[in-house]
């Protein structure tokens, strides 16, 4: 598979599962600070595997990998006994539906993005707004706001990270799926 096709596949099929994945990790992993590491590592493993062969069923594949990562870490850390996790019916994710239900409907998507935008710090928000809503280039944003292009660039970098965080950890789009998966039935480590 060529590189671009692989990247497109990853963005289209894997990344939309992020809210579910984040939720899954949060439910099952005590240390909030490590969620980002786990997620990134799970993504990297899926990506590596897909270089050789794309998994037929993306969702179960991703969750299996996430689960294995957690188990590996637990073994290494021996913080929690494995039995305590055994009662969680984690992997009832064998359905082969395309991940399209993870795509948020257009309207909901706009609301979601807007909410994420509104949560940005003021200057960052202003830069993202001019760049994405008004369609200004970074240079034009710099000129209009009277700041340097480097500052605009920094704010863009910050903005996309914060947007990713707000969207990836969102809960609203997850609720519909939560009903379908047993592993949400016994919430653990809920704070």
């Amino acid at each position, binding site marked *: 598979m060529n590189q671009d096709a692989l990247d497109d596949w990853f963005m289209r099929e894997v990344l939309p599962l992020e809210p579910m994945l984040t939720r899954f990790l949060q439910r099952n992993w005590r240390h909030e600070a490590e969620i980002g590491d786990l997620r*990134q590592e799970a993504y990297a493993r899926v990506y590596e595997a897909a270089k050789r062969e794309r998994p037929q069923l993306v969702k179960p594949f991703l969750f299996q990998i996430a689960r294995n990562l957690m188990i590996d870490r637990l073994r290494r850390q021996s913080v929690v006994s494995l039995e305590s996790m055994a009662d969680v019916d984690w992997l009832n994710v064998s359905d082969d539906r395309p991940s*399209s239900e993870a795509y948020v409907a257009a309207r909901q998507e706009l609301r979601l993005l807007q909410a994420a935008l509104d949560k940005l710090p003021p200057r960052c928000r202003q830069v993202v*707004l001019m760049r*994405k809503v008004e369609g200004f280039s970074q240079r*034009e944003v710099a000129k209009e706001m009277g700041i340097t292009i480097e500052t605009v660039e920094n704010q863009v*970098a910050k903005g996309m990270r914060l*947007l990713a965080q707000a969207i990836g950890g969102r809960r609203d789009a997850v609720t519909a799926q939560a009903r379908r998966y047993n592993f949400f039935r016994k919430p653990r480590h809920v704070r």
Partner: protein
Amino acid sequence: MSADEIEQIASEWLAREDRGLTAEEHALMERWLEESSLHKVSYLRLKAVWRRADRLGALKRPPAAGRGASPRWIGLSVAAALIVCVGGGAWLAWHRTVPPGQDFATGIGRIQAVRLADGTKVELNTNTRLHADVNDASRTVRLDSGEAYFDVVHDDKRPFTVYAGNRRITDIGTKFSVFRNGDDVRVTVREGKVRIEVLNGDGKQVLAEAGHVLVTKGLETLIITKPEADIVNDLSWRDGMLIFNQQTLAEAAEQFNRYNERQILVEGPARKIRIGGSFKADNVDVFVLLHRGFGLSVNEQDGTIIVSR
């Protein structure tokens, strides 16, 4: 390196990419991306979000509309309209109240929702043109082409009427969609009832209610009763989705073609293959991928995707 640190670097590269990379910078970025899949996925994740944020363009205000905005903002909007020249207008412009006697249009792959002066909500599907005239005495819409969904605020004194082809559709408290392709008209009723008449006909009229789909051709009208779930699927375009339940590939292609410049042509026996699933209406590539499972050949020439056995 922690996920956070990697993400920081990925975001810096993307921000530079967003500004515009020199060839040298590009090579450096590529090298960094190839170092580790951790770098790559972090980069792709932020890239996908940054692309998704393009949808925020739908929030762009029309140049003249101040809506309590500061003069600076109006200036910006005007400037932006000149500089950007997006064309096609806002993708979704919600709850915009409009004066009577107005034309609305959407381009290929666009949907738009507007609220008429009487509170009725109209959602325009892809490639649609309509004219709405709402005044104290009457409420009429003329559907010139395409498809629109109407969520009508009922008013006994002012019936809400849609003209499409040689049909007149009058609401009796309802939500319905009208699709027009030349003289062929299809009415899908979600809630309530509508009355459908042939214009210049012999006064024949048909009452249709929730769950009914009416297909007209010439003077003939066919009524099909569908389960609610199917009706909802038929109207899934309102969320930018196409949902198929055992439709043929040929039918699915026809639907996709309404939403995309890139056209799909299904040839031969492949036309009869039945598919199911829900798809983003603008994601032709997903459609292409589907065919792997069917052992079909897929070729693209001059913007047309040709699918055959």
